[in-house]
């Protein structure tokens, strides 16, 4: 199990390759990567991600350990960045390895749903016109948790 909270960029391909190589007996490996998009309207200049340093690592470790146990994963990885990110930069990734594909997919979706609504990160969008606004939590992200 690997949980990293960091400001620096990470190399998605290298992380994915190392993760898969580390659990070759697993059969099924799923990864998810979140990328900073342009805002839907009015060009996004940057995304600023604030977090709660004392709590973040613990919260991610708890969520990841829950997924490991529930789906009997061979391994799991979570990387989440904070600080200032520009469009096209990768915000975070998760990876899961299991004997069968259904478990690997479900565990990755579970991790994403919990990260979205239970890990202490807050996103702020900085637009071209200089305005800045906190991203609001979505109802559907909260509802997604009821699946688990």
């Amino acid at each position, binding site marked *: 199990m690997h949980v990293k909270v960091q400001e620096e960029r990470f190399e998605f391909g290298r992380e994915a390759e190392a993760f898969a190589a580390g659990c070759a007996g697993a059969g099924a490996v799923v990864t998810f990567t979140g990328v900073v998009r342009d805002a839907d309207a009015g060009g996004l200049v940057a995304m600023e*991600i604030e977090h*709660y340093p004392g709590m973040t690592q613990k919260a991610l470790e708890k969520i990841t350990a829950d997924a490991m146990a529930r789906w009997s994963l061979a391994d799991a990885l979570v990387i989440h960045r904070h600080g200032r990110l520009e469009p096209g930069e990768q915000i975070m990734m998760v990876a899961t390895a299991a004997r069968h594909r259904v478990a690997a997919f479900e565990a990755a979706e579970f991790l994403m749903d919990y*990260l*979205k609504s*239970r890990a*202490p990160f807050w996103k702020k969008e900085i637009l071209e016109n200089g305005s800045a606004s*906190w991203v*609001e*939590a979505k109802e559907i992200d909260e509802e997604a948790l009821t699946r688990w």
Partner: protein
Amino acid sequence: MMDVVYFAWVRERIGLPREKVESTAATVSELVAELSVREERYAAAFADLSALRVALDQELSDFDASLEGVREVAFFPPMTGG
């Protein structure tokens, strides 16, 4: 004496990230009530509790929870990670 910390727009509205608070509040709700009467910026930040989340000693909790033995209270909006 406990640490009270704020994140995202709660931090911006109150105007500081962290402060020490002397309080005899037994629950989170009582602490919110004490802070809200201090100054308008607190009242503004705590106006709608349904838009807020609270963590006690870095674990998610709720507004009815007891503050007994708690050293750090955090207030913030719903999380938007991932």
